[in-house]
């Protein structure tokens, strides 16, 4: 019995002593990137390329633009990704951190509908119609020229960059409350899945998330039509365009600067294009 006791005591002692020893390892250079799921593909692909010729380890995580801005302001990340500008509110709150925006590309947000709705004839929506849908005044697709089916209104989490630019265009208020909402989603992938799974959904997503089951509608506003095409974005006609930003606290230095320069450089800009966005120099 006594022998077992010693084993026990030994085990417990090991447990207590072992922990502090572990933390000494791993001192390589690290760059932590957090934020917008819209910018994430660019960051992670660039990071992969960048790490081929560098010892720096780059870790890119999702979370949304708001999270990206918070994290970098509170030094929980080296670079924040945001698919919108820093809001006035955030500017005041994080005044001390001296946040600097580094635009790396352009993106456009489309009003998306489920493929079934698109095929049933809803090819365009006016700004007023979209506003009506999100405010819960228009509840059936037949009111906007679609089939007789209730609308599954999909909104995004309040702090998401995509929501900010979209709501800003529709209502002129990025934080507009939308009582017509039926579902709230987070990342672009999540929203894309929910729109695709439904046969009567409306939502908001970057162009890069358009696919077979998730279709972008043409926007109509004051007699003008805005086709959701890259050509329209390049010609500066499409209205819901935004910059994809990297955000740092203070001027970037060392590896952080090297990485941002890489993304802004020719190789990085090619990745921007491959990810479905517009290079910042090419407009």
């Amino acid at each position: 019995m006594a022998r077992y006791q010693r084993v026990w005591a030994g085990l417990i002692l090991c447990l207590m002593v072992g922990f502090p020893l572990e933390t000494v390892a791993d001192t390589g250079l690290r760059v932590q990137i957090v934020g917008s799921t819209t910018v994430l593909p660019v960051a992670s692909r660039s990071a992969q390329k960048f790490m081929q010729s560098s010892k720096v380890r780059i870790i890119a995580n999702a979370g949304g633009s708001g999270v990206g801005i918070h994290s970098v302001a509170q030094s929980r990340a080296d670079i924040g990704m945001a698919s919108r500008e820093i809001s006035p509110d955030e500017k005041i709150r994080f005044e001390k951190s001296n946040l600097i925006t580094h635009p790396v590309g352009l993106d456009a947000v489309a009003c998306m509908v489920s493929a079934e709705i698109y095929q049933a004839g809803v090819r365009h929506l006016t700004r007023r119609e979209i506003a009506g849908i999100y405010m819960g005044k228009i509840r059936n697709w037949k009111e906007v020229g679609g089939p007789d089916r209730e609308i599954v209104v999909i909104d995004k989490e309040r702090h998401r960059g995509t929501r900010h630019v979209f709501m800003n265009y529709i209502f002129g208020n990025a934080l507009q409350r939308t009582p017509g909402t039926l579902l709230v989603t987070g990342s672009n992938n999540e929203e894309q899945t929910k729109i695709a799974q439904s046969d009567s959904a409306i939502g908001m997503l970057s162009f890069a998330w358009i696919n077979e089951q998730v279709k972008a509608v043409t926007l109509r506003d004051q007699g003008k039509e805005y086709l959701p095409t890259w050509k329209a974005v390049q010609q500066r006609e499409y209205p819901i365009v935004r910059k994809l930003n990297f955000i740092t606290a203070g001027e970037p230095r060392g590896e952080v600067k090297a990485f941002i320069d890489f993304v802004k450089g020719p190789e990085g800009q090619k990745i921007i294009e491959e990810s479905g966005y517009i290079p910042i120099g090419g407009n």
Partner: protein
Amino acid sequence: MNFSFGNYLSSDCSAVRNWEPLGWVFAGMNFIFLTCTMGLATFLLVESIPVWRSEGLAFWLGENWWVGETFGALPMICGSFIVTGLAVLLVLPVALSGALFTSEYLTPPLRRRMKGIMEMLAGIPGIIYGLLGVSFLTAGVKDVFNLLDGNTLFTAGCLLAIMILPTVLTLSEDALRSVSSEFREAAEGLGLTKLQTAWRVVLPQSLPGIVGAVLLGIGRAMGETIAVMLVIGSLDRVPGFNIFVSGQTIPSKLGREAAEALGSAEHWSALMGLGFTLFLMVAFITICGNYFKYWSGR
């Protein structure tokens, strides 16, 4: 939540003198656990003080959660109760029948295999269930009930039921199994059939253990974040009596907003208030369950 804790220390003082050195180590470990629980409760309470100050009881009764203006947690509280209640309702018949069958009807080798499978399933993380839910359950619920959309409280309840089934099943089975075989033999001797024995003799005897199993299941269901978040629709709304609409639970709300709220004093404190509320809910249910055990054990 342990009723016997106080009794042991006060009435068995003589035992303390006889403790061997290792006994103190064990006591120290137990103390770590106690500190964790108490520390968590204190942390949540202290962090949420600002929201209690600004909202008071309206925090529990308010229906609107508008960051920067007002924080009302009623939609999340209702959602948590509905989803957990639903999960328990759905899981009880399946788990109890399954446990009875495994414990009373199966031969020992088969039973061991069955237990292995149950325990394996009990260890699967929530995200796996969540992804399964997103891929199949939401679409299934939508089609079966002919709904506008499959992301509903009901879907979340079903998913949680599937999730806690292995835990409740295996622990209930343990409880049934732990009933002494003398009871079974006596019942057999009186000419009771297997079913009668199981239902009338074994089940009542093992009731406290089954309640414990269900409590653990409830704990897991109430705290589940990611699986629920993916299928519930995440809409802050008091659902009323319709379970086929989207809603929100406390953990799913925390999961959605925690990262955003870090560093924003007011919002963060509101989320901590939600956490504290959840803590109280789980504590309340556990205490009730333990009283029931105590009462039925007498």
